[in-house]
């Protein structure tokens, strides 16, 4: 699966590289656009020293970790939201006659590495925040774990959204609420949100495990909402469950596929 993905991605990258100027511009724009998000955070902290109890480097840490995962998944899996077009036009047929996973083929379709600019920006933000924070080395291991967890969660959300398109082909926007919405939501510490919303994104849609719960552990903080301590480490399990659910939904979706006339 990984091999197939890599091979297909490479072919699309080569195709995109046929237009080098547009390619370079896209990377730069992506980087610049993402920098605006950070700009907003910095503007907030120019007026205050803490946001819902969190300092500037802490907020940047949460932002960076979530965005590395979000941007890389957006780049590698995000194209799955084109599935509704493939379903409506019947071009999904072409994926089904190939000896490769339909999920891989859908996610890698028209892959462009231009969003690497956003990923790069998030890596820099995380690096700067980590340098300022001076996280004790005993807790640093959680950082790669939380980023991997977040990637699985985002990829699963995108897949669930994609699978839903097989049932309701007219609602890609509803799905974006969860994928892009989740990405936006996790840019800030969850303590800025209402208690019910946080409860929902902890126990229903596990967005809280993207960066909030494991982030609290890395930062050595208690949860202002008072959730039990084991939740800081529950991320991988929640991600796994969500991934299983997504895989199941995708399979069912494909079996429901009706193709189009002739």
């Amino acid at each position, binding site marked *: 699966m990984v091999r*197939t993905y890599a*091979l297909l991605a490479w072919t699309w990258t080569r195709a995109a590289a046929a237009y080098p100027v547009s390619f370079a511009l896209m990377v730069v724009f992506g980087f610049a656009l993402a920098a605006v998000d950070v700009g907003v955070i910095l503007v907030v902290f120019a007026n205050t020293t803490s946001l819902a109890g969190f300092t500037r480097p802490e907020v940047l840490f949460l932002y960076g970790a979530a965005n590395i995962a979000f941007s890389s998944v957006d780049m590698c899996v995000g194209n799955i939201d084109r599935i509704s077009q493939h379903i409506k036009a019947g071009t999904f047929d*072409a994926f*089904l*006659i*190939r*000896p490769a996973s339909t999920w891989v083929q859908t996610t890698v379709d028209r892959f462009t590495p231009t969003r690497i600019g956003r990923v790069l920006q998030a890596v820099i933000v995380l690096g700067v925040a980590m340098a300022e924070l001076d996280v004790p080395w005993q807790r640093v291991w959680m950082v790669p774990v939380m980023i991997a967890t977040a990637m699985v969660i985002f990829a699963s959300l995108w897949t669930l959204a994609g699978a839903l398109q097989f049932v309701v082909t007219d609602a890609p926007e509803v799905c974006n609420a969860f994928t892009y919405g989740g990405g936006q939501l996790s840019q800030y510490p969850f303590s800025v949100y209402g208690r019910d919303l946080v409860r929902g994104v902890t126990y229903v849609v596990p967005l809280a495990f993207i960066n909030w719960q494991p982030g609290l552990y890395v930062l050595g903080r208690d949860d202002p909402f008072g959730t039990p301590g084991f939740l800081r480490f529950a991320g991988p399990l929640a991600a796994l469950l969500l991934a299983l659910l997504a895989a199941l939904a995708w399979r069912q979706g494909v079996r429901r*596929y*009706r*193709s189009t006339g002739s």
Partner: protein
Amino acid sequence: MIELDRAGRSFKVKRALVHAVRDLSFRVEPGEFVGYLGPNGAGKSTTIKMLCGILTPTSGRVRVAGLDPSRRRTTLARRIGVVFGQRTTLWWDLPLKDSFELIRLLYKVDRKVFRERLDELVETLDLAEFLRTPVRQLSLGQRMRGDLTAALLHAPDVLVLDEPTIGLDVISKNSIRAFLLRVNAERGTTVLLTTHDLGDIERLCRRVMVIDHGRLAFDGSLEQLMATSPEETIEEVVTRLYTRAGQ
């Protein structure tokens, strides 16, 4: 090679159940060249899509090369070649050459074997001059030849074609027909094709199946088909068969 046992596929359309194919049973042996006829909406494409695993049958049993297409889709994909005349399965924005390269990677065809097959196909189907053209810029005839090549690069045992000559001019039609005959004769590839062009049937198919309203209305040789009614030409015979089946 192909085996359908009371296979059916129904769709829910506005709460009503529409049977695109119902209780369809037939067998195609290895090496056969079968024409699959039927009026528009008879269930031809639905059958084809069940054969290659695109649609899951809602009843009955389908086997291609001994495999259940919807459950063993990826395994089957290596043994079946599929061409849709109405719609390309190539990558729209990529040059034809890149599409073939993707197919080599997806089907894990050995580089050397691939080279030889591609060279042969490029020569017989005369693809050399547009290999670097993106698929979207190809003419219909060129695209169809590209699609045929793509379906044969992994040397499948079965070739399933849904209206492969639709919209083609006489010359393109002839070259594609000659090519299909050659593939069937030289490689022993089993071929099943649907068409509305009765010339395809006369020139190519030793066996003809006619489907109507999702059921088999005729199955036999071309001679037997012609003997079903007193008419002279195949057009008239088929017209009569379609009208009779429709009543």
